């Protein structure tokens, strides 16, 4: 992450901040892996992968709690300002999104388990193409966002944002397709619903990836771009100098 000047005069502060960054990176990496593994479990009907995702979910929750507690302690004891303050805030916001992305991975993994139990029959073949595309996009955007958080690189925010839009469009298209399936073959109603939930999870992962990227923008420049679209009418926000 961006590191202005030398370290802090007070070394323990440096230690606590870099510990926070390292742990956020660890958690981010694991969440990105969870997304990838869950997607693999789904696409390749890999039971083991799905079970792995479910096993690792607890770790993510633990890390989130720990990182937030550490951020809280840092705020109380070091009273960070400027880039340090933004780092702590961005990280504690990012871990919330990461944890939720982890939850979504868990849901996808459950769906994959259920799917493989049912066998390759049913609508999954029909649904396979949109699922695959969305899964790849979601996984890719989460990977990019997590890397951006680690490097403090705001330049990829646009990339993540573009991926998110693509995911959203893909989601719309897949929903229409599924609607057709449901209307034509009502016996597929249950798997269709389940697929919709999986798709929704992937769409949410895309959103969370986008949020993480926005936290990175805040971390680097201090600009809050979360609701930039909605607030376009308001006075122009100060961004970079």
């Amino acid at each position, binding site marked *: 992450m961006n590191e*202005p*000047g030398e370290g802090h005069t007070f070394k323990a*502060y440096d230690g606590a901040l870099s510990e926070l960054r390292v742990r956020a990176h660890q958690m981010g990496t694991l969440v990105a892996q969870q997304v990838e593994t869950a997607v693999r479990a789904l696409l390749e009907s890999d039971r083991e992968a799905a079970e792995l995702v479910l096993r690792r979910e607890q770790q993510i929750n633990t890390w989130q709690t720990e990182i937030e507690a550490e951020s809280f302690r840092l705020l109380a004891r070091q009273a960070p*300002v*400027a880039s340090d303050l*933004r780092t702590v805030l961005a990280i504690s916001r990012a871990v919330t999104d990461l944890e939720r992305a982890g939850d979504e991975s868990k849901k996808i993994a459950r769906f994959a388990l259920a799917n493989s139990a049912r066998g390759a029959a049913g609508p999954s073949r029909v649904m396979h193409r949109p699922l695959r595309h969305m899964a790849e996009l979601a996984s890719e955007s989460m990977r990019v966002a997590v890397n951006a958080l680690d490097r403090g690189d705001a330049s990829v925010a646009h990339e993540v944002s573009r991926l998110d839009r693509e995911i959203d469009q893909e989601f719309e298209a897949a929903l229409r397709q599924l609607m057709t399936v449901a209307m034509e073959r009502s016996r597929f109603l249950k798997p269709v619903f389940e697929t919709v939930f999986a798709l929704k999870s992937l769409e949410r992962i895309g959103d969370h990836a986008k949020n993480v990227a926005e936290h990175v923008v805040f971390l680097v*420049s*201090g600009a809050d771009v979360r609701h930039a679209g909605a607030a376009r009418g308001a006075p122009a926000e100060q961004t970079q100098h």
Partner: protein
Amino acid sequence: MQTRSGAPESTSRQAPQRLAGGAGPSVPRPAIDAARAAEPVEQVTVKARAENLSFYYGTVQALKGLSIEMREKRVTALIGPSGCGKTTFLRCFNRMHDLTPGTRYEGRIMLYPDDFNLIAKGVDPIEVRMRIGMVFQKPNPFPKSIFENVAYGLRVRGLRSSARVEEEVEKALRRAAIWDEVKDRLDNSGLSLSGGQQQRLCIARALATNPEILLFDEPTSALDPIATARIEELIAELRDQVTVIIVTHNMQQAARVSDYTAFMYLGELIEFDNTSKLFTNPSKKATEDYITGRYG
């Protein structure tokens, strides 16, 4: 000695510059901070303006061409490492340096609305000090009664009517939020008070003369946290009554009490901005390093 930059004083009589809506002349307007953004238009008047101010102790140059504005009825904090010249700068405003032989000012410090260059040759420092009050680092009440401490400035100004003096003393003590604590013992020595009370007494003493600008030179560096909090609260209350310039070593204090913050380093002004902006997202790397504690 004085360099007269810009127009001669006599011809530059003009109304105080309004900064609202960008009407002011080439003023770098900091982003309006969130708390004030709700107000429709922020009306900020410039109370004082240092223009290319340099200051010398003998041959040592302590201030190197500072230019900065102090906004009326706002709190401006001066921060920076020891020896950066912030106290030197503060003491230019009431010509305190004139007490030390061999000091020299260059440039101008304009006081508005009357366009008065307070460091111009021929301007009597006493006249300046009649208009600008100061509170010092360590509480320094006179070893006189509490009443006489506050009354002294009035007496120097020739106020003789004891009824008027009493009225003004009470007003000042109330403004300094110490009236309730001392009203029953106005005849006790100012030195009988606690450190924090002494400092509020000193603030009352400075307020009694209704200064246009009140200078604070690290006013809480000798006080405990609770006394410090009371002084900070007091400064916050004074915000709408008087223009305040405060030097502080405590960056959290600057962040808490000020509207604007100036970061100085080695006798130069590095950054001046809205306090919220400066403490969340400073523009200059030197400022960032200093306020985050990376100053080597």
